[in-house]
């Protein structure tokens, strides 16, 4: 039953790794040449190694995009009209979210399934880990309304755990141990997920068509972003991510990813393979597994189940953070979860690709440390460099000027920028040629949006770099970040909130630029694109959280609202208007 990667798959993985390694080694060699101009010292070698690792990481992302551009997402063979035999349930874990918004999403998905006319029965279980008693009370009241409105007595279920042990993974596990026997397939969602009924049915049919399939992941698109930051993320997720995901899908074979939501699992496979133990020791490295999804995908693959990313499936949506602070909060949790995987990467029996995925996740968070290490080493390098000897030959009256290797440094900088820019520019070019850009406002707007996204991500990158670095240090110092509720909704920041969240970044930027000015004045201009966004971080945080109505960053879901989103908007509007003659739920409950 265990699927084995084919020779072609190994060859593709090998080629991708080789290309990334070549890029890293070229950068390493160029930097050594540059450093050798005035004599190599230990700091030069250290900086060359840091450049090697950082370039390798950048090149790996670029190669993934290049591979993704070489193919189109295709639907696997399955009978699209086959009757669904298995029993399915949609699992909606909630944790202190606004129940009106969350429950109306359930109603919209159920209505979307009903609109297909398919006779398949799909239950819904709302799995609450809500700690706030007022929200919990509203959940119970609104659940009754949801059941009545969707005529779902005996088909919709709700339960709230007394203790939220194991967070989301524990929540799902509790459901399976209590009710898993009633179902063949479970669609795991997040509180902000929305999926078209047609997509859900297609996923179930694909799972029925492939008995080895343990987990089927979709590529959710971010929707309903309002702010500049949110819309940039939304555009990036819609325009660039599918190409990166295609590249990933081609390389991972049957050892695909699980991103924790908008994915269908075979309940028996999940129950047999994905029971998560509590890791030895205390958090952040011990305790409950935080980023459980990657681990569950690895465990399914270890047990011989196919884990697949079907990136051809449309109709899968989520919402994203609207500002950098919320993004950083979520990233803090993901950082801890990914670094905790260093405890799991050596788990017995894992497939090599699963270990590689864990390594990638860890690298995604420690890569900024290599860049910062390189910048700091470059600032202090002039202090420790030996003075240039212009008269190396005793008695020779004329000075000797060592050859400048600045061209190598400039070549290296161009190469690194190329790795950052080229994949996105190529994606925009391909989108214009294939017509995909039409969904993004046309080729010109899509190209302008790409340039705007590049400028925007260049401005925010130094800020995110420091947030990530702080998260990594917090985890290394043993600080558990806990499990804060995701902020969903408006997300607009005031200047004072922005300053409170980022004054330490401003201070870091000021100290860094002052140190550069005095210690390495030759680097001052080069480091301005990094230092200025840090210094003006509060303004950037505030500005990027403000609403955006620009034609730039247009996405298909903005041009044509997906049906399930329209359904949700309609139902939400109705729920937010009190029903005529309806009793006040609070009064009805208490009396």
């Amino acid at each position, binding site marked *: 039953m265990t699927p084995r990667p084919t020779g072609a798959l190994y060859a593709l993985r090998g080629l991708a790794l080789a290309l990334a390694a070549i890029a890293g080694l070229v950068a390493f060699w160029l930097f050594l040449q540059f450093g050798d101009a005035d004599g190599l010292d230990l700091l030069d070698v250290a900086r060359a190694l840091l450049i090697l690792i950082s370039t390798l990481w950048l090149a790996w992302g670029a190669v993934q995009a290049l591979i993704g551009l070489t193919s189109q997402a295709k639907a696997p063979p399955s009978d699209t009209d086959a009757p669904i035999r298995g029993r399915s349930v949609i699992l909606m874990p909630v944790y202190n979210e606004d129940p009106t918004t969350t429950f109306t999403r359930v109603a919209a998905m159920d209505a979307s399934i009903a609109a297909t006319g398919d006779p398949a029965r799909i239950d819904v279980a709302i799995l609450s880990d809500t700690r706030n008693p007022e929200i919990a009370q509203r959940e119970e009241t609104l659940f009754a309304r949801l059941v009545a409105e969707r005529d779902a007595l005996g088909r919709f279920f709700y*339960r709230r755990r007394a203790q939220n042990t194991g967070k989301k993974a524990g929540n799902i596990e509790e459901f*399976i141990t209590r*009710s898993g026997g009633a179902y063949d397939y479970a669609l795991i969602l997040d509180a902000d997920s929305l999926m078209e009924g047609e997509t859900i049915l297609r996923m179930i049919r694909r799972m029925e068509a492939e008995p080895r399939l343990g987990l089927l992941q979709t590529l959710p698109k971010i929707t309903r972003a309002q702010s500049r930051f949110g819309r940039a993320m939304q555009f990036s997720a819609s325009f660039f991510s599918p190409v990166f995901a295609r590249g990933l899908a081609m390389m991972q074979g049957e050892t695909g990813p699980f991103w924790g939501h908008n994915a269908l699992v075979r309940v028996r496979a999940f129950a047999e393979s*994905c*029971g*998560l133990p509590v890791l030895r020791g205390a958090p952040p490295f011990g305790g409950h597994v935080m980023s459980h999804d990657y681990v569950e995908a690895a465990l399914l693959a270890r047990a011989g189940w196919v884990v697949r990313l079907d990136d051809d499936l449309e109709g899968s949506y989520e919402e994203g953070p609207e500002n950098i602070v919320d993004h950083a909060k979520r990233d803090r949790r993901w950082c801890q979860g990914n670094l905790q995987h260093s405890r799991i990467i050596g788990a017995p029996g894992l497939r090599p690709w699963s270990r590689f995925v864990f390594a990638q996740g860890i690298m995604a968070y420690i890569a900024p440390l290599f860049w910062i290490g390189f910048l700091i080493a470059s600032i202090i390098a002039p202090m420790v460099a030996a003075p240039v000897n212009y008269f190396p030959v005793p008695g020779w009256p004329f000075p000797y000027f060592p050859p400048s290797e600045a061209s190598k440094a400039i070549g290296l900088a161009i190469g690194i920028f190329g790795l950052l820019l080229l994949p996105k520019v190529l994606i925009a070019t391909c989108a214009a040629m294939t017509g995909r850009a039409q969904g993004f406002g046309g080729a010109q707007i899509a190209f302008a949006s790409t340039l705007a996204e590049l400028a925007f991500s260049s401005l925010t990158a130094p800020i995110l770099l420091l947030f990530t670095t702080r998260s990594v240090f917090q985890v290394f110092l043993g600080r558990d970040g806990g499990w804060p509720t995701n902020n969903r909704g408006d997300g607009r920041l005031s200047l004072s909130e922005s300053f409170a969240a980022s004054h330490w970044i401003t201070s870091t930027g000021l100290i860094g630029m002052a140190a550069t000015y005095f210690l390495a004045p030759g680097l001052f201009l080069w480091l301005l694109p990094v230092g200025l966004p840090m210094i003006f971080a509060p303004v950037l945080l505030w500005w990027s959280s403000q609403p955006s109505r620009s034609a730039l960053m247009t996405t298909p879901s903005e041009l044509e609202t997906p049906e399930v989103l329209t359904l949700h908007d309609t139902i939400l509007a109705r729920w937010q208007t009190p029903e005529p003659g309806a009793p006040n739920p609070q009064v009805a409950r208490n009396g």
Partner: protein
Amino acid sequence: MTAPFSPVAARQTATRALSPEALLAGPGALPDAPMAMPAQELEHPQGLLRRMIAALLPDRFAAPSAGARL
């Protein structure tokens, strides 16, 4: 004039008649269909360093074999 009979409307009325507590304790409660979910092995019983040292050291503390000297 008599309203046409609608099973959906009748069910909805019946659902609305249930209090939230009755709904959660009754038809809205999760089905009782337990399934085992055994905890998987993620960590070796010993850390990497201990395992490496154990692999390098001769097996001095193994129990004597029940071999030729008996």
